[in-house]
C-alpha cells in the first residue's frame, strides 16, 4: 500500500490548537475562537487536497497509510500507531472537518456571550482531532484511542455548562452508558487478538477466512454493543436525549453529524467480520429496526425541539445501522445516509440553535409558533433540512433513505417484507413528527413568552446554516448520480462485487416511500394545523404518555440496572467490609506483623549482618549441593 506523510496533519493540527488554547488559558481568550476555526478550516483544506489526490489515483492505489511510530512492541506482538486513509475514511474526514468548520464558524457567534468561549473551542478542536483519529486509525487499538477521545470530548461538551447540576448529570449519564459500549469494543478487540493474533484491520481481514464462526459472531456482537453505546442504539440509547444539555453547536456536531455515527463507521469498517457472521448481522438489523422505530415514536411526543431532533437522530442512525446489517449491499447506502444526514441534521440543529437564540433560549416548541415571518432564513434552511429528512425527492434524504428501504426489501422473503415494512413505517412516523416540529415552530399562532423578541440570527450563524441547507438539497443527488458512492466505496466494503438481487423493482419501493411520506405529513397537517395551545395537552392516551416518557427507557434502565445495581452494590459493600476488608486487614495485619518480625533482623550491628550473609552463603551452597545431587 502507498504511504503518505500528510495524513497526520489532519489530526495534529486540531490537537495542537486544542492543547495551545488550553495551556494558554485566558491569555488566548481574545483570539482563541478565530484560531481554532482557522485550524479546523485548514484541516478541512488538507482533507480536500487529499480527497482530490486520492481521486486522481487509480482505484487500487487510492488507500494510503502513514506509520507514525511503533506504539507497542512486546515480543511478537507489535502495534504501530499508524493511519489509514482510504475511500471510507476520507468520506468521514470531509464530513468531520467540513461540518466541523461550519459549526466552528457558527459557534463564534453562538457562544459570543459565554466567558468560556475559548475553552469551548479548545474542546471542539480536541473533538475533531479525536474523531479524525477514530476514523483514520489503521487498527482497532488506534481506533479505540479515538473512540475514547470522542467520548471524553462529548462528556466535556455535554457538561460544558456544568454549573447546572442536571447538565453535569446528563454528561455523566452519557459517559457511563458509553462505557458499557466501550467494554464491548475492548472485548471485541481481545477476541480479535485471541483469534487472529492481530488488532489491525488488514491483519484481521487477511486471516478472517481461517476463523470459526463462533468467534466471529462473538466479536461481531461485541462490536455491535460498542456501536450501540456510541451511536445511541437500543438498548443503550437513553443518553442521547439528555446529551442535548450541551450547547447547541455541540448537539449539531457531535450528537447529530459525527460522533454518534461512529458506530456505523465501526460496523462498516468491520465488514469483513460481519460478512462472515450472519447471526451478528441479523442482530445488527434487529437493533437497527428497533431503534429506528423507537426513536421515531419518541420523536412524536417531544415538545423540546432539541430532544425531538435527538430522537430523530437516534431513529436515522437506526436506518444506517439497519443498512449495515445487510452487508455489502447496504454499507454504501449506510454511509450515504450518514453523509446526507450529517448535512440536514446538523443544519436543523443549527436552525434550532438559531431559534433558541432568538427566543431567549426557550426550547419548548409549544412556546414558539409563527416564527417563519421573523426568522426567514432560519425557517428556509430548516425547511430544506426538513424536506431532506422526511425524504421528499429530490432532496438528499430521499435518495439515501429510499435506497435503505429498498435494500431492506431486497433481503427477500418474509424477512424482507418485515424489514422493509418496518423501515417504511419509520418513514411514515418520521414524516409525521418532523412535520409537527415544522408546524409548531414556524407556522400557526404565536405562543411566545411575554419577553420574547424573535429576530434573525447574525450572518456568522446563518451562513453555515445556508451552506448545510445546500448540502441537504444537493448531496443526495451528487452522491448517488451514477452510483458514485457505491463505486467509490466498493474497494473497501464490497471487494468481491456481489450481485444484488432485487426483490421489488426500485420504482415500486420509491412509490411506497413517497406514499409513506405523504401519509405521515397529512396526519401531522390534520392534527397540528391552525391554533395550538401553549402547553402540552394532559388528557392524552396512555401511548402518548409512554412516548413522552421516552417509552420508559429510563424507567427500564432504572428497574433493570440501577435498582438491582444499587442492591448489588449494597450487598457488595457489606461483603467488602465483612469479607474482603476483613481478609485484607487480616493480611495487612499479618504483613505488618511479619514485617515487624523481619525488622528485628535489622539490628544495626555489623556482626549480625555479617552473620546473616554467612548463613545465606551457607544456605546457597547447601541449596546448590541439593540441586546437584
Amino acid at each position, binding site marked *: 500500500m502507498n504511504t503518505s506523510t500528510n495524513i497526520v496533519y489532519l489530526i495534529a493540527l486540531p490537537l495542537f490548537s486544542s492543547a495551545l488554547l488550553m495551556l494558554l488559558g485566558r491569555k488566548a481568550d481574545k483570539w482563541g475562537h478565530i484560531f481554532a476555526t482557522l485550524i479546523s478550516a485548514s484541516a478541512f483544506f488538507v482533507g480536500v487536497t487529499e480527497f482530490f489526490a486520492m481521486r486522481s489515483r487509480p482505484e487500487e492505489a487510492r488507500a494510503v497509510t502513514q506509520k507514525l511510530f511503533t506504539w507497542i512492541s512486546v515480543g511478537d506482538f507489535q502495534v504501530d500507531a499508524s493511519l489509514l486513509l482510504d475511500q471510507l475514511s476520507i468520506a468521514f474526514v470531509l464530513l468531520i472537518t467540513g461540518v466541523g468548520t461550519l459549526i466552528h464558524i457558527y459557534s463564534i457567534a453562538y457562544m459570543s456571550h459565554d466567558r468560556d468561549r475559548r475553552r469551548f473551542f479548545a474542546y471542539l478542536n480536541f473533538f475533531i482531532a479525536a474523531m479524525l483519529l477514530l476514523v483514520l486509525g489503521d487498527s482497532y487499538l488506534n481506533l479505540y484511542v479515538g473512540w475514547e477521545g470522542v467520548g471524553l470530548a462529548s462528556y466535556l461538551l455535554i457538561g460544558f455548562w456544568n454549573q447546572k447540576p442536571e447538565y453535569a448529570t446528563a454528561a455523566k449519564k452519557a459517559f457511563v452508558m458509553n462505557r458499557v459500549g466501550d467494554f464491548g469494543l475492548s472485548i471485541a478487540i481481545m477476541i480479535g487478538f485471541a483469534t487472529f493474533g492481530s488488532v489491525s484491520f488488514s491483519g484481521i481481514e487477511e486471516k478472517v477466512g481461517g476463523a470459526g464462526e463462533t468467534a466471529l459472531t462473538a466479536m461481531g456482537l461485541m462490536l455491535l454493543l460498542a456501536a450501540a453505546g456510541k451511536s445511541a442504539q437500543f438498548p443503550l440509547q437513553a443518553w442521547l436525549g439528555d446529551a442535548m444539555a450541551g450547547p447547541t453547536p455541540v448537539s449539531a456536531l457531535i450528537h447529530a453529524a459525527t460522533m454518534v455515527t461512529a458506530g456505523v463507521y465501526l460496523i462498516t469498517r468491520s465488514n469483513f467480520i460481519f460478512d462472515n457472521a450472519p447471526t451478528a448481522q441479523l442482530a445488527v438489523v434487529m437493533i437497527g429496526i428497533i431503534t429506528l422505530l423507537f426513536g421515531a415514536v419518541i420523536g412524536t411526543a417531544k415538545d423540546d425541539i432539541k430532544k425531538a431532533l435527538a430522537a430523530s437522530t437516534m431513529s436515522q442512525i437506526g436506518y444506517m445501522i439497519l443498512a449495515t446489517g445487510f452487508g455489502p449491499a447496504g454499507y454504501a447506502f449506510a454511509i450515504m445516509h450518514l453523509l446526507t444526514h450529517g448535512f440536514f441534521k446538523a443544519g436543523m440543529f443549527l436552525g434550532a440553535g438559531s431559534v433558541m437564540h432568538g427566543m431567549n433560549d426557550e426550547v419548548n416548541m409549544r412556546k414558539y409558533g409563527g416564527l417563519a415571518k421573523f426568522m426567514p432564513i432560519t425557517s428556509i434552511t430548516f425547511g430544506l433540512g426538513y424536506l431532506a429528512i422526511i425524504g421528499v425527492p429530490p432532496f438528499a434524504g430521499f435518495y439515501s433513505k429510499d435506497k435503505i428501504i429498498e435494500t431492506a426489501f431486497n433481503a427477500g422473503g418474509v424477512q424482507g417484507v418485515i424489514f422493509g415494512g418496518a423501515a417504511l413505517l419509520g418513514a411514515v412516523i418520521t414524516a409525521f413528527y418532523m412535520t409537527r416540529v415544522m408546524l409548531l415552530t414556524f407556522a400557526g399562532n404565536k405562543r411566545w413568552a411575554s419577553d420574547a423578541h424573535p429576530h434573525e440570527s447574525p450572518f456568522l450563524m446563518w451562513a453555515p446554516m445556508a451552506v448545510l441547507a445546500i448540502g441537504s438539497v444537493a448531496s443526495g443527488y451528487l452522491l448517488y448520480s451514477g452510483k458514485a458512492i457505491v463505486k467509490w466505496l466498493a474497494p473497501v466494503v464490497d471487494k468481491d462485487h456481489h450481485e444484488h438481487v432485487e426483490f421489488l423493482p426500485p420504482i415500486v419501493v420509491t412509490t411506497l416511500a413517497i406514499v409513506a411520506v405523504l401519509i405521515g405529513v397529512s396526519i401531522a397537517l390534520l392534527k397540528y394545523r391552525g391554533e395550538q395551545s401553549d402547553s402540552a395537552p394532559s388528557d392524552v392516551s396512555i401511548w402518548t404518555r409512554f412516548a413522552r416518557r421516552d417509552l420508559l427507557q429510563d424507567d427500564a434502565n432504572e428497574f433493570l440496572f440501577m435498582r438491582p445495581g444499587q442492591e448489588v452494590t449494597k450487598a457488595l459493600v457489606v461483603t467488602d467490609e465483612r469479607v474482603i476488608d476483613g481478609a485484607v486487614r487480616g493480611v495487612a495485619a499479618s504483613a505488618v506483623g511479619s514485617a*515487624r518480625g523481619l525488622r528485628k533482623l535489622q539490628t544495626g550491628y555489623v556482626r549480625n549482618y555479617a552473620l546473616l550473609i554467612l548463613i545465606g552463603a551457607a544456605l546457597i551452597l547447601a541449596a546448590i549441593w541439593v540441586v546437584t545431587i
Partner: protein
Amino acid sequence: MGFTAPVLEYSALAPMLVIFAAAVIGVIVEAFTSAKLRPSLQLAIALGAVILSFTQVITLRGTTTTTVAMESVVVDGPVLFLQGTILVLAFLGLLLIADFEQFAAQASAIPGSPEEEVATKTGKVQTEIYPLTLFAVGGMMLFPAASDLITLFVALEVLSLPLYLMAGLSRRRRLLSQEAALKYFLLGAYSSAFFLFGSAFLYGFAGKVSFQGIHNVITSGPGNDVFLLIGLAAISVGLLFKVGAVPFHAWTPDVYQGAPTAVTAFMAAATKVAAFGAALRIYYTAVSGAVWSWRPLLIVIAIITMIVGSLIAISQRDVKRMLAYSSIAHTGFLITGILALNQSGITATLFYLATYGLTTMGAFALVSLVRDASGEVTDLNRWVGLARRSPQLALIFSLFLLSFAGIPLTAGFIGKFSIFSAAYENGAISVVVVGVLASAIAAFFYIRVIVMMFFAEPGSDSVSVIIPSRYTMSVIWVAAIVTLLMGVFPGPLLDLIGSLSTLVR
C-alpha cells in the same frame, strides 16, 4: 620466558579511559588549586568527562568489536547501553552533588571536633567527592564490561571503594553517616572476600579466568563440579550483596539512610545498573552451561527478596529507608529478568535498569528538598499534607511512587510487564506469581504515602520545601519526564535495546 606487550584497543576503551583520566586530574586539582576555585572547576571537569565519555559511547554504538584489551574487556551492545545509562545517571548524580551543600567540609576531621567546625565556618570545603564519583563511575562502567574474573574483581573494588567513602561524607548527622560508611565498608569487604574465594574456585575448576574459558570447560565437561558449584555459590554471594538481594541486603537501608542523599541517589541508581549488568553477563555467558544448578537458587532468592523487600517496606517510617526496601524489592524483580534466560529477558532487564535508575534518582533528589531548620526531613509522619505546601513536588513524587509500584502509564509498569512476561515465557511461573503479589503489597505502601501527602491534614510541624537551585529541580524534572514518557512511548527505547541486546562471551 617471553613477554608479550598487551594490546590495547584505545578507541573501544575510550569511554572508561576518559573517566579515569578525569578522575586522576580531579585528584591533582584537589591538591593544587585554591579552595575558592575548586568546586566549580571540579564540577566542570567531572561533567565534561561524563559528556565526553558519553559521546565516545555514542560513536562506538555501531561497532561489532567483541573482546578488547587482551580479552579482558568486552564491548558489545548491552555493555554500551549500560555504560550510557551509567553515564546519564552519573551526570544527574553530579548535578545533585553539586547542589548539595550538606557534605562535610573535611571528611577526615573527627565529627564535632574543633577542626571540623573551623573548616565549616571558614568555608574551606574539600571537593574530593568529584574525583571519587568519577572513580566509582569508571568502575561501574568496567564492571559489566569485564570478561574475566580478575578484571571483574578489580572493577568491583574500583567502584566500591569510592562509594564507601562517599557514604561517610554527610555534614549533618555525621556519626550516622560515618557509621553507614563503616558498615558498608566492612560488609563490602566481607562480600568481596566471598567473591574472590568463588573466583579462585572457578579458576580451580576451569584453569582459566576468562568467561569464555569457563564456559568452554562447563560445556565440554572435564572440570571438577564441586569446584564449580562452590565457586558459583561464592561468586553469587558477592554479586547478590552488591545488588542488595535478601539475605545479603541488610546493609542497604542503613547505608541509604546514613549516606548524604545525593550520594544515595547516585549509589542506588548507578550501582544497581552496573551490578546487574555484570550479573547478566556472568549468568548468561560464563556459567550459562550450568543453569540447572543456579536457576532454582536464583528463583528462591528472587522470591524471598521480593517478599521481604515489600513486606518490610510497609513498616518503615522513614522515606529513605522505605525507598531502600523498595529498592530491595526491585532487586527481586530484576533477578526475575535474569531468570528469564532469553533475549526478551535481557531487553526487559536493560529497560528496567535504565528507567528504574532514573526514577530512583529523581525520588531521592526530591527527598533532599524536603527540609526543616535542621536539614532534611525523612520522617514520613512529617510528610503529611506535603501536597498543600508544594503540590508540584507532591505530584511528581506520586508519579515516582506509582512508577515504583508499576502502575500503567509509568515506566515502571512497562518494565515490570516486560520482565514478568519474559520470565513467564521461560516457565518461571512461580516467580511471576510471587512478583505480581509482591507488587500488590508494594503498591500498598507507595499509595499510602501518596494518600498521606494529599489527603491528610498537615500537622503543626514546619516542614518546608527548599529549592536550592536549578540543578536538583532539573534532575527531578528529567526523571519525571522520562518516567512518564517511557510509560507512554516505551517503543523506541525497547526497540533500541532489542537491537543491541546480544551478549558477547
